[in-house]
């Protein structure tokens, strides 16, 4: 039984991203493609997403010209490939508040957004610090904060404090405090809806960029290797990796890093006319494949 269809939707990519930025210690070891993706969860009468991508109007030109980000397409175009409209999305889980994960809030006018309260309150604390602490503001777009104010005014911002089960049937959120960011979280989909699920997926945001973070360089002798960028502690990143991998029964490939290009080697996928990949992790009972 599959309660939900799950798709990873690429919306832009950096063709040549230094591996050292993703996997701790991989200095001078070349580059890899870094896709920018969000996740669609559809089933049980629900249409939800994990993260929403960055705001092209605000950042597209700089990211394209200075950072080599290519192929950005709007949620309308990207989601249209699987027959979904942004206005139909009802629930969105923001894994953390970096601009490339929450910048497109305005494109989802009917969605309720779930964010860890700590992610918001620690922003505010960080902003009160002297200028010499500005590194701690990395990846935060002040315009996103103002959009979050609007969400709160409209009653569409849900501040979560820690773990919460069954936010949607079989969909849980888990706090990962002081890791990649102050209040990161990951999302678990128990796709058989069972308490002790045998078919869970974990959507980890930037708590892992690639599978090396979750199993090291030698799959026969696995180890956790921290990500290349953490505001919090690498110890917490590693312990969160353990929690995520345990929650999927040790099958690291059921932990889904949205920036991992090699998902295509594990799950069926297709490339759209716009050159973007759609990866299909699961199909709800009765749902038609979008990649066949």
């Amino acid at each position, binding site marked *: 039984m599959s309660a939900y269809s799950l798709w990873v939707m690429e919306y832009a990519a950096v063709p040549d*991203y230094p591996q050292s930025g993703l996997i701790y210690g991989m200095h001078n070891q070349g580059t890899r493609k870094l896709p920018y993706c969000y996740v669609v969860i559809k089933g049980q009468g629900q249409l939800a997403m994990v993260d929403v991508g960055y705001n092209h109007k605000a950042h597209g030109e700089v990211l394209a010209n*200075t*950072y080599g980000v290519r192929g950005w397409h709007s949620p309308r175009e990207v989601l249209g490939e699987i027959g979904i409209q942004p206005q139909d999305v009802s629930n969105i889980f923001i894994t953390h508040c970096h601009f490339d994960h929450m910048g497109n809030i305005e494109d989802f006018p009917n969605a309720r957004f779930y964010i860890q309260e700590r992610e918001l309150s620690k922003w505010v604390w960080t902003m009160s610090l002297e200028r010499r602490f500005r590194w701690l503001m990395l990846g935060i777009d*002040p315009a996103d904060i*103002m959009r*979050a104010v609007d969400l709160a005014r409209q009653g569409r911002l849900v501040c979560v404090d820690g773990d919460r089960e069954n936010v949607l049937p079989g969909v849980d959120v888990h706090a990962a405090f002081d890791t990649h960011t102050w209040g990161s979280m990951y999302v678990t989909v128990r796709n058989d809806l069972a308490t002790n699920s045998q078919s869970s997926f974990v959507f980890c945001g930037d708590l892992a960029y690639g599978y090396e973070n979750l199993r090291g360089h030698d799959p026969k002798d696995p180890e956790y290797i921290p990500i290349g960028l953490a505001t919090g502690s690498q110890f917490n990143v590693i312990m969160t990796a353990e929690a995520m991998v345990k929650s999927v029964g040790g099958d690291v490939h059921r932990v889904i890093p949205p920036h991992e290009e090699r998902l295509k080697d594990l799950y069926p996928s297709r490339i759209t006319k716009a050159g973007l990949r759609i990866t299909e992790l699961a199909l709800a009972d009765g749902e038609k494949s979008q990649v066949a």
Partner: protein
Amino acid sequence: MIDEATAAYIVENQKCFEDLKQVASQLAGLLVLAAAGSKEAAPDHPTLGAARERFREADDALRRARPTDRARPHYEHLAQAAALIGAALKESREVLNVDRILIPLRAGYTELEHAADALPGFQKIAYDRACCGGARIQ
């Protein structure tokens, strides 16, 4: 091409731009908490004190700025941003009324975004320190 006088203007006014951006962020952050119903969000929150101090520094710097013709549009956006963000700060003195503060604040931040687009050297966010930072190509 940027002439020398304009380059000097850019260097001298980066801190002013960053300070205004920081003040806008601080105020917006408090508004999120206020709109979400947090008890922490009040006019005596230490973040607001820091914001007012930083705004004074930015405002002083703006008065000292000497824009070239090339820098004039940037300066005008920056000055407009300061006026609007200053108005938002004034609104926050006694009560954190989200609706009344957000209108000038958002307009002020939009002016900052226009300023960032008007001259090189003024970043809306610190891309270099974000996830994409490692991909810098120029």
